[in-house]
């Protein structure tokens, strides 16, 4: 239809509106009200034993933001997220690049790729436990006979705990990034690659000049999604290390959990939750803005590189830039 989209009966709007409002009302009751309640809790100090509530205003917020434990947890969350994002980008892109090519068994591999995402975070943790456990883990089992490590080598220790969790997390979430990248890769017209080949551009150069510019928006999406998921990630961490050893892998969500269930500090936990949400949104927005702005820089850079004279066979045509 050459027409504009969706011309509709007027009463259609009423029909849809009713449905949506109904849905939203439910949503409000089930979601917004608890949120408001949570905010209320965050402004009160609840003594579970004495069953009293005392209004303390922003006290909890102040306490958290000045507590070294909390600040450390926030930092760990940030580091965790950063590592997760970078690794997800690399591995996700790598998987997608491989899957973008044609080879026997490709449909099978495509399905297999999704397994880590289909597994729950608990099962993911289980799988990695069987690799990382000092006593019976596969890593120890592999490297000890070769004499590279001693028996009972603690792979997860104070220095490495956070990073191992990040790696397990990346294993779980990279397929999602790979799917995005694959979709993005498949929109790149073949003719661009052919033109680049005719221009005798080597594979790496083709990657930088043809593939990457096209993938820019996908990279933004993946960064945003992984950032959001990593920052609030809890299940995997809880199942794998419980924040340990000590507080080595205690991220902010983990700390909030402990506030709630180990210390019964509901007010503190509620306040911390809001701080977590706020930081998460800030980071996501910053990522988005920075990456979107960079697009112009990338394009300028590509154009500049293009201007450099390259050896060309006589009569070949120039590869066009997106």
């Amino acid at each position: 239809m050459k027409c504009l989209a969706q011309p509709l009966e007027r009463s259609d709007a009423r029909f849809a509106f009713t449905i949506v409002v109904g849905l939203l009302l439910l949503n409000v009751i089930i979601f917004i009200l608890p949120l408001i309640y949570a905010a209320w809790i965050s402004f009160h100090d609840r003594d579970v034993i004495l069953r009293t509530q005392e209004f303390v205003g922003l006290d909890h917020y102040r306490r958290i933001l000045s507590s070294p434990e909390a600040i450390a947890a926030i930092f760990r969350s940030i580091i965790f997220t950063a590592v997760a994002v970078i690794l997800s980008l690399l591995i996700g892109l790598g998987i997608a690049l491989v899957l973008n090519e044609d080879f026997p068994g490709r449909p099978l591999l495509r399905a297999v790729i999704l397994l880590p995402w289909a597994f729950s975070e608990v099962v993911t943790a289980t799988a990695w436990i069987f690799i990382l456990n000092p006593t019976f883990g596969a890593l120890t089992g592999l490297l000890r006979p070769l004499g590279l490590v001693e028996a009972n080598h603690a792979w997860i220790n104070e220095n490495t705990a956070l990073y191992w969790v990040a790696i397990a997390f990346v294993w779980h979430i990279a397929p999602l990034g790979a799917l995005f990248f694959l979709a993005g890769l498949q929109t790149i017209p073949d003719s661009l690659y052919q033109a680049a080949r005719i221009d005798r551009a080597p594979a790496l150069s083709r990657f930088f000049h043809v593939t990457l510019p096209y993938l820019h928006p996908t990279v933004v999406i993946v960064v945003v999604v992984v950032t959001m998921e990593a920052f609030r990630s809890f299940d995997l961490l809880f199942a794998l290390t419980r924040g340990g050893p000590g507080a080595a892998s205690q991220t902010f969500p983990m700390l909030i959990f402990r506030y709630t269930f180990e210390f019964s500090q509901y007010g503190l936990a509620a306040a911390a939750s809001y701080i977590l949400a706020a930081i998460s949104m800030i980071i996501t927005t910053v990522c988005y803005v920075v990456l979107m702005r960079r697009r112009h820089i990338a394009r300028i850079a590509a154009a500049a590189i293009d201007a450099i004279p390259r050896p060309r066979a006589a009569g070949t045509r120039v590869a066009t830039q997106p």
Partner: protein
Amino acid sequence: MAAVVLQHVSRRYRETIAVDSLDLEIVDKEFVVLLGPSGCGKTTILNMIAGTDTPTSGRILFDSRSMEQVPPEKRNVAMVFQTIALYPHKTVYENIAFPLRMARLSRPEIDGRVRAAARVLRIGELLDRRPHELSGGQRQRVALGRAVVRDPVVFLFDEPLSALDAELRAEMRVEIKKLHERLGGTFIYVTHDQVEALTMADRIAVMDTGKLRQFGTPDEVYHRPANISVARSIGSPGMNLIDGRPVENAGTVRFAGLRVAIPFDDAMTTAARGSRGMLTLGVRPEALSIKPIGLPLIGEGRVYAIEPLGSDQFVHVTYGGTDGTELIKVRTSPDARFQVGDAISLHASPAEIYLFDGIGDRIFPSGLRLR
């Protein structure tokens, strides 16, 4: 069956006006064609009549009953879509039976009607197939079957033949016309193909950018186009349209290098004044002749280009115009032979000459304007 009346019907989407204050009175059992170039307007009109779209202003009446509060499922209209729109997950039988099922007819009655319709449309052996297994022509017939199996008040057709090849189109034109004779219903048919319009319609509504330009019989629309827009839409190849300043000269009008024996009356002068002296002259290629055969001479020129078409031949002729050269198309016998540059004389009867004013309305011959 019903008479359908549109009163000042308009439809706008944000800034675009798809239908502009349309007034149309369609008589019961009439076959009306909405003719116009491909665009949103005509389909939108059909949708509004069917009820799947609502006018921004204006009313639609079936037999003097306003359809404003009546939803599409209660209007009892049938529609054949440009995209055919068969239910992909249902068999042909189920597709045709669907409206009857929705009307809660009994199973034996549904079966009877579906098979009768299938017989008429010669798709009896296809009843168990799914739409994707059928050819375009077969799908179109199923869509027709779905429309005729009920007893609708109005039949709507949205460019149903545009996806078919020329041969199939000719065949289906006849079938649809026959269907109209058999069912005797009110048919409202949308197309951009003037051949369909001229061959099938009782009356044609010529439309252009959402506005109705003329509503009349094929004869009226061909011989008495109300304005340039209609003149251009009807007739193939289109009417020659020449801009110029008419100058009176001893009972004839000199117009851009042509001399036409038509009276130059006050209406013309007033019209000309309104558009700074410029009018448009129209004459169909088939109305022009290079031989005198009793027709007055209107001009001389030279052959510029030749279009031999087998059964027809068209010659482009240059003649002295306002800036030295003008081009006019003449229909000639297919056996005549020409060379570029040959001298040609042009003849035409004054009855075949039209004059249009600055905004495109016909001012000569007067009478039988918009209906």
